[in-house]
């Protein structure tokens, strides 16, 4: 263990000692709490005698402690709760430290830890969130606990579904398909003209940088309150990144690739389909991924400017005004799931189509 880890262990043990000391008098009311404090304190011995120093032990301590603390947080947390919380947090961190620094791990376990560590980290954040909001009695209008949010989520499935359909399926998806599709077609059309490319590329880059969401009120004026105006915003937002990336992708091929096709006296269309489009695929997918996030953001923000009584953005702004923050968080959870799922789907397709690109290759080599 290096100095940092040693320090962590010392502080964790001190905290556990504090917890033990505070909970001794309540040992009958909260036996589980008492026992975990005891075990954590035994950790003091590990400092001096190097027993059971593997990260796994810290990890177990942390997990068990988390479960016990979760149970006890609902009664008003007794003394010893908070030092124990800190102690268990440090043990969890220590566990991650040790595991990630461990040199001799079988490849299987390495892969496992690769997934398990961020999940454990995420779980810890949720746990801490829950415990701190409940333990410190944080009012719901400021930050609701994850349990309250999940309850609200389950209770409002119909509303959430309707909002999802309105914002994602109707506005974001339509806008995304139209925006990316038209940009793709136009990129191919202007591909033949160097002059047009030289003009449009800088302008496209410029427009990609400006706050296009601001065009939402104008789109509402043109297309009405409903999802069409939001889709229009998404079309504009996704058009330029796709255009710029496709045009760039079509221009990055090697002189050798172009000369080879010249020696075959191939036609423009042949060269486009057989060489330039496959070579442009990484760029195109890059734009598709960026645009999936932009589409959702655009659709949601556009609803802030005015919307019929349905939609993720609409619901968020309304419920924020009513201080129903658990509903707001439930909507955010939906948005997060939709956002990462769509990104994930596109990434998956990308890996299949551009399997040959060096960045995707490490597992396929020989």
């Amino acid at each position, binding site marked *: 263990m290096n100095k940092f880890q040693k320090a962590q262990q010392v502080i964790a043990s001190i905290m556990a000692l504090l917890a033990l000391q505070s909970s001794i008098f309540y040992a009958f009311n909260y036996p589980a709490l008492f026992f975990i404090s005891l075990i954590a304190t035994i950790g003091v011995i590990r400092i001096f005698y190097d027993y059971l120093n593997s990260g796994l032990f810290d990890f177990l301590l942390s997990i068990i402690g988390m479960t016990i603390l979760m149970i006890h947080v609902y009664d008003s947390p007794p003394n010893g709760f908070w030092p124990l919380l800190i102690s268990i947090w440090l043990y969890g*961190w220590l566990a*991650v*430290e040790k*595991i*990630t*620094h461990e040199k001799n791990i079988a490849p299987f376990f390495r892969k496992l*830890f*690769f997934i398990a*560590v*961020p999940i*454990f*980290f995420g779980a810890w954040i949720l746990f801490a969130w829950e415990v701190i909001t409940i333990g410190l009695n944080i009012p719901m209008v*400021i*930050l609701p606990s994850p349990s309250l949010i999940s309850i609200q989520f389950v209770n409002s499935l119909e509303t959430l579904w309707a909002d999802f359909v309105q914002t994602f399926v109707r506005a974001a998806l339509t806008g995304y398909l139209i925006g990316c599709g038209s940009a793709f077609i136009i990129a191919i059309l202007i591909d033949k003209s160097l*002059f*047009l*490319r*030289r*003009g*449009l590329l*800088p*302008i496209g880059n*410029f427009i990609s*940088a*400006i*706050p296009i*969401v*601001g*065009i*939402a*009120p*104008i789109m509402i*004026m*043109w297309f009405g309150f409903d999802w069409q105006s939001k889709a229009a915003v998404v079309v504009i937002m996704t058009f330029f990144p796709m255009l710029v990336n496709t045009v760039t992708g079509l221009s990055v091929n090697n002189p050798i690739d172009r000369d080879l096709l010249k020696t075959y006296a191939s036609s423009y269309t042949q060269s486009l389909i057989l060489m330039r489009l496959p070579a442009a695929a990484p760029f195109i997918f890059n734009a598709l991924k960026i645009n*999936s*996030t932009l589409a*959702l*953001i655009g659709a*949601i*923000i556009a609803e*802030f*400017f*005015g919307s019929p009584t349905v939609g*993720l953005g609409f619901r*968020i*702004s309304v419920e*924020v*005004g009513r201080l129903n*923050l658990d509903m*707001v*968080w439930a*909507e*955010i959870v939906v*948005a*997060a799931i939709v*956002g*990462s799922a*769509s*990104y*994930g789907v596109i990434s998956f397709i990308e890996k299949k189509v551009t399997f040959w690109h060096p960045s995707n290759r490490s597992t396929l080599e020989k």
Partner: protein
Amino acid sequence: MSENTFINYFKNSFLPILSIIIIIFAVWYIFTVYLNSSIQIDSYERQKIDWDFSDLVRDTMSQKKPLLPAPHQIVSEMWKTIFMIKITSKKSLIFHSYITLSSTLLGFTIGTILGIILAVSIVENKAMDASLMPWIIASQTIPILAIAPMIIIILNAFGLSGLLPKALISTYLSFFPIAVGMVKGLRSPELSYLDLMHTYNSSRLNIFWKLRLPSSVPYLFASMKVAIAISLVGAIVGELPTGAVAGLGARLLTGSYFGLTIQIWSALVMAAILAGTLIFILNFISRITLKRMGVQE
């Protein structure tokens, strides 16, 4: 020889861009007449005026609340609200731009600093890397901007209003691209360079200062450009929930409430100018810095 490159620049960059811009303006004017014409014709009929095509063209370009304002209308509105009004007045576009710009810059600066700190800790500490990196990458797929209204309301409840909540939104938004870009940059040195440092028995601190940090500068500038654009969007969106008092987002909102299209467009154009200027400045700084560091174009 320098005249030759100037002519090349003119032919290859300036002329094409100028032509496209001219085409865009021409199309814009045509659409102005086209889109505003139905309202104009209704107005003629209500007022029982005889009209011909040139009347139509002239009047559609000077409506008070047009469906699509003509470019010169936008320019004159902007001129009015920038130069013809006291800067401190609530109607001044400069005043509103200043509000939005200040929260953008504050948020961007804090976000950049935090992003760099996070990136350094991810690269230097494996536990941080394993726990945090997947989440940071995942967060780029989540529409974080949707949280903006909530953050504003919560912070208002704590008594923090005005600049700081909006700046915090901008911080939050710029923080992730900077962290991701910086991690890429800090990890970018080739293996052979790292091996060389090892043959000198270099300490981690030395490797960091002398190799990783300089290698990360191009990546940092690239993500800063993305981050500042996002910060601007964040600042504008942050002005929406509070019923919008000041700032470009506020101008957008009030314009949309009262149907003041020209006001909306002028706020948008101003935002675009701001974005363009900020990125131009960043580009300029980036070029000088990288040139001094020996990076070739």
